[in-house]
């Protein structure tokens, strides 16, 4: 997924309050303005801003960048920063230079711990008012999928009868944008108005459009559009889509999409809007499990595998990975799995353990031209998925699943998994007591862990901001952000740290302590802890045959 990202120049930091200059091509101001919502928050006063420099960053660099501005650069940069309805005014970000050594991996964990004040994080819950957040998100985001000829395919308000108020309301705007987009034939992928970012993904004959007011960058929105496009492919496959539009530009693709597909797209857009960190960081969540149990489940899956099993997965509710079975020659793509798990657990709602599902699915990142068949069986809410290229081998896979599950039960594996799910992962488990929440991604495993008891929806804007403040071109990048006067208590502030190295990414949020040094130490603790327990936290080897 990361390979597909459109990189944006994010070195430049605009002056607070600087407003983007609109690109000329897609401008259709009167119509666009209909899409905007009035800014919900009045900008903070400049006096309230606090810059929090990070070790080793030279402010001179920032100044130099500013002198080198060319129009594209301004444009890109503003794309990146200009769209937050409340961000460019109340936050400041300083990134480290790529050469900066942030910490030495040999740091003694005990030393690190000593540096951290042994104080529990104050309860941040008051600061994150869920309802308020939800209210803010309402209408703050919209997705449209349409054909190149402008025929609606999907919007978030689509229903099974294709009543589509959003398309009706926005039709003029969308057509204008799309035609100017197509006429210019262009490299334009995104533009931004005062509060809103528009991002397009042109996968002719399909065009996808994201409209966001919550401060996501172009590349993040592009990833989300790619996910939706991949979902369409997963249902139809590429040749099916191409054939549908062959010699019939005006074809209505909704004829080929049913309730299940709309429901699937709705679920994905809901996951995006409610904030699924896995979609942001391009990784799968995994569950913590004793190494011996993970190894045992691995060897059972390997031993009981029948000849037509191409892939196998053991997945907990919410798409949390427990184990993977795969041939040596093939890897699995995160996006394909995110879509598969989303479909499987959507189906799980009304299927019980004595049912077995047989789902045709196109893994578009694996091969967009063909279908695979997924056998799905639920055991204690955990899904055992076996995938084959042969549509006729349902009963073979069904037998295989029975043997696997029998062995799982014999070795108490389901019990251990359920215990792990029950306990979840808490910040208490980790020697970084001041941290309210964190996301740790192991790049090697393309998996992430985070505390499971917190509702991450309320943390979305902080994580988005942290994520987009990272310099993805740098080998190592650290970003520290402080939000002042957040929440109800005027004394409280929230701080976050994003830290990306060649092997991992860690993002953390804290409420009580906002000193940069402390956060860096906490980040170190998290990294050390995750590394030390990586065999428990991640599916490291998987069952490779």
């Amino acid at each position, binding site marked *: 997924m990361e390979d597909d990202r459109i990189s944006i120049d994010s070195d430049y930091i605009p002056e607070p309050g600087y407003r983007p200059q609109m690109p000329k091509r897609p401008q259709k101001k009167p119509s666009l303005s209909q899409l905007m919502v009035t800014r919900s928050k009045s900008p903070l006063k400049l006096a309230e801003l606090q810059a929090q420099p990070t070790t080793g960053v030279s402010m001179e660099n920032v100044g130099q960048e500013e002198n080198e501005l060319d129009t594209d650069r301004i444009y890109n940069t503003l794309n990146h920063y200009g769209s937050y309805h409340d961000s460019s005014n109340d936050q400041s970000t300083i990134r480290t230079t790529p050469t900066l050594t942030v910490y030495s991996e040999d740091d003694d964990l005990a030393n690190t711990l000593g540096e951290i004040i042994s104080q529990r994080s104050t309860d941040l819950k008051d600061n994150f008012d869920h309802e308020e957040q939800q209210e803010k998100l309402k209408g703050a985001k919209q997705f449209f999928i349409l054909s190149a000829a402008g025929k609606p395919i999907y919007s978030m308000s689509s229903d*099974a009868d294709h009543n589509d108020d959003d398309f009706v309301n926005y039709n003029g705007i969308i057509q204008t944008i799309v035609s100017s987009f197509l006429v210019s034939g262009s490299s334009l992928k995104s533009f931004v108005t005062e509060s809103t970012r528009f991002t397009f993904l042109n996968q002719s004959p399909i065009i996808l459009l994201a409209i966001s007011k919550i401060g996501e960058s172009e590349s993040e929105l592009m990833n989300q559009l790619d996910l939706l496009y991949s979902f369409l492919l997963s*249902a*139809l496959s590429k040749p*099916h889509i191409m054939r549908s539009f062959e010699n019939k530009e005006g074809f209505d693709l909704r*004829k*080929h999409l*049913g*309730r*299940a597909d709309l*429901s699937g797209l709705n679920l994905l857009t809901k996951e995006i809007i409610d904030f699924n960190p896995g979609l942001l960081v391009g990784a799968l969540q995994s569950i913590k499990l004793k190494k011996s149990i993970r190894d045992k489940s691995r060897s059972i899956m390997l031993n009981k595998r029948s000849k037509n099993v191409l892939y196998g997965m053991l997945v907990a509710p919410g798409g949390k990975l427990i184990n993977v079975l795969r041939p040596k020659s093939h890897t699995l793509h995160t996006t394909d799995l995110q879509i598969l798990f989303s*479909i499987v657990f*959507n*189906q799980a*709602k*009304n*299927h*019980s353990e*004595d*049912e*077995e*599902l*047989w*789902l*045709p699915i196109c893994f578009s990142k694996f091969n967009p031209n063909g279908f695979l*068949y*997924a056998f799905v069986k639920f055991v204690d809410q955990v899904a055992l998925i076996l995938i084959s290229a042969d*549509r*006729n081998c*349902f009963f073979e896979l*069904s037998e295989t699943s029975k043997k696997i599950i029998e062995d799982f039960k014999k070795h108490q594996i389901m019990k251990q998994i359920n215990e792990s799910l029950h306990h979840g992962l808490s910040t208490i488990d980790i020697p970084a007591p001041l941290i309210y929440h964190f996301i740790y991604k192991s790049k090697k495993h393309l998996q992430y862990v985070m505390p499971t008891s917190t509702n991450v929806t309320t943390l979305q804007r902080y994580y988005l901001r942290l994520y987009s403040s990272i310099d993805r071109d740098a080998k190592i990048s650290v970003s520290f952000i402080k939000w002042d006067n957040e929440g109800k208590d005027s004394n409280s502030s929230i701080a976050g740290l994003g830290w990306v190295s060649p092997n991992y990414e860690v993002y953390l949020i804290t409420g009580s302590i906002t000193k940069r040094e402390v956060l860096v130490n906490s980040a170190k603790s998290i990294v050390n802890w995750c590394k030390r327990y990586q065999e428990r936290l991640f599916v490291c080897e998987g069952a490779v045959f």
Partner: protein
Amino acid sequence: MSSNSIRQHTNSEFKRGNKSIITEIQTEYNRIMATNTSPETRFAQFKLVLLGESAVGKSSVVHRFVKDSFDDFRESTIGAAFLTQTIQLDDTTTIKFEIWDTAGQERYKSLAPMYYRNANAAIVVYDITQESSLERAKAWTKELQRQANQDIVIALAGNKVDLESQRQVPKEIAETFASEEGLLFFEVSAKSGEGIKEIFTKIAEKLPLESQLKPNRLQNKGVDLQRPSTNNQKNSCCS
């Protein structure tokens, strides 16, 4: 179960010390056991497939039959789901259905032969409040008659009779079609449960039971826990 209750009787009679009753019970117990293992007890297994337009309620019909439950907000089926249910047709006959509940969506149509290929029975479902769904049901019927097993038992089921006020398909029209084509016909409601069991019972009654016994016995080795006993299998195998 019967043996347990008899044992309980036996114990209580013991306390009263009434030996003649115990002897009587023992005789009765032996008689029941003998009946249970009689060669007339039969077990058969059939493959059944549900077909029909999207959203007519195929999965709801199956779930009412298998779990006796109904969910107003059911997700649309993707691909197909496989379920089994065993029914007691009469005192001596047990039928196990292996059910393919298929997705109604048009684009899965090409996969349908995979599910009806070896089916002994099919339920073609339409929605009495959607006229188009009967047309789709007719098309499925034709396809089955053309491509499925020659002796497949087909039932036409009009679902959602609980929505009588929204009815678009008069019962007579569907019934006439069914009788012309030699189909079983039912109007049912998965929501209320009305008529659901009858579909499966009538299908079971119409299926050629004897011819199914031998091959299914072998296929079904050691899977079905609800089978009456191990003895009667051998017996009916030879019958």
